[in-house]
């Protein structure tokens, strides 16, 4: 079911305590900041969050972690120069970390959306991140069994949605958006612009609307370099 809502508060209002929440973005590109802020305000807690990182500075995911709302992070790169809120919680033993190589993270998310029960990958073979996991030699290479990562909800930022929920993204802000939209049982997307059905060239749709449940328009901030102009679509 696809619905269009008027506010980010309404968009996240169904997120329950204990949910697994995927959050798109790599660095600031593609981070759904307004949806994350709304999640912070709505009070849902005891969350498992899937993101490439574990929050930066004093905004977005970092604040969710600071407020003690995240019990577990599944990510590839938690430690950064400005990841002080995660660092403090981790050192205090107040947050669980599942560290996943970035390509395995992406493929595990993709597998969930594609209904795959798991896969063997050479990434991580022979390292401490493969300890305790099933391994096989396939085509002469050591490979590690990895399982899908499912989620209750995904929070995603795209450039435009049409009336069918079809999405286009912008440059490297695409990153985890398409695979998270498919992997989550309910995907919530903030876009800069909503266009009528038929306004997107079907050849250029990146995420088909079948993967999209809730859409909310969040205009690009004034002075932002994230333009809404587009060469195609």
């Amino acid at each position, binding site marked *: 079911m696809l619905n269009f809502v008027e506010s980010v508060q309404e968009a996240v209002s169904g997120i329950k305590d204990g949910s697994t929440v995927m959050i798109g973005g*790599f*660095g*600031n*590109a*593609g981070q759904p900041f307004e949806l994350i802020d709304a999640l912070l305000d709505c009070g849902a807690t005891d969350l498992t969050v899937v993101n*490439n990182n574990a929050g930066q500075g004093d905004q977005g995911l970092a604040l969710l972690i600071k407020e003690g709302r995240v019990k577990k992070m599944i990510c*590839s*790169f*938690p*430690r*950064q120069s400005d990841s002080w809120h*995660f*660092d403090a919680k*981790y*050192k205090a033993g107040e947050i669980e*970390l599942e*560290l*996943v*190589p*970035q*390509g*395995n*993270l*992406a*493929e595990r*998310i*993709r597998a969930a959306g594609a209904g795959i029960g798991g896969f063997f*990958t*050479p*990434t*991580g*073979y*022979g*390292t*401490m*991140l493969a300890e305790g996991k099933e391994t096989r030699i396939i085509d002469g290479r*050591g490979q590690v069994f990895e399982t899908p990562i499912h989620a209750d909800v995904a929070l995603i930022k795209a450039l435009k949605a049409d009336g069918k929920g079809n999405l286009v*993204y*912008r*440059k*490297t*802000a*695409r*990153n*985890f*958006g*398409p*695979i998270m939209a498919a992997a989550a049982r309910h995907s919530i997307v903030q876009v800069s612009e909503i266009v009528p059905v038929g306004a997107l060239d079907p050849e250029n749709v*990146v995420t088909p609307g079948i993967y999209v449940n809730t859409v909310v328009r969040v205009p690009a901030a004034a002075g*932002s*370099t*994230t*333009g809404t102009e587009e060469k195609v679509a």
Partner: protein
Amino acid sequence: MGVMESSIKTSEAPLSRDDLARLVARDIAPGSFVNLGIGQPTLVSNYLTEDQDITLHTENGMLGMGPEARGEEIDEDLINAGKIPVTELPGASYFHHADSFAMMRGGHLDICVLGAFQVSVTGDLANWHTGAPGAIPAVGGAMDLATGAKDVFVMMTLLTREGASKIVESCTYPLTGVGCVTRVYTDKAVFLTGPGGITVRETFGCTLEELQELVPVPLKAAAAA
């Protein structure tokens, strides 16, 4: 010249970081698809020539990455894996994260260039974690890059600040990948690694014998290419 023990010495002095980057750039075959890791490997892009027609990959979803963006070029939707604003070149393409790592893991990238803490004689790589108690582990794309590209080049200083060799018999730091490194570019020598062990392609500012005093594994000159 012509003296046996110094025949692979190609420079009178150790190489600077920029000289090393220039050498790596020169060794990349024309037309290659290349991923340059964060830090020292990024310098290599300064020395790639237009004639080489190299396509740079960044794992956050782009082929055809251009130089760092400056001034009005800066676009917060266009960054590299180090989260630095970059530019796009004509012919660039964007794709999602699973596709980006599939092209890496699928062996489609010709070369990736990475930094390292240690490399073993058989090409094991340690570059993501010191294993120190209390250190917060962060792996990013390092393990995927190490196992995915056809050739994995490492760029590093030969010695740690304490003077220990980073070329080792076997890594003491946690591994990033097993037997994945094919070449190691250091300030004092270029090493070739693999299942057959380690050889030295060339030395900078020292003879093979002088190099051997710094490195705790038996070294021999590589067969001439």
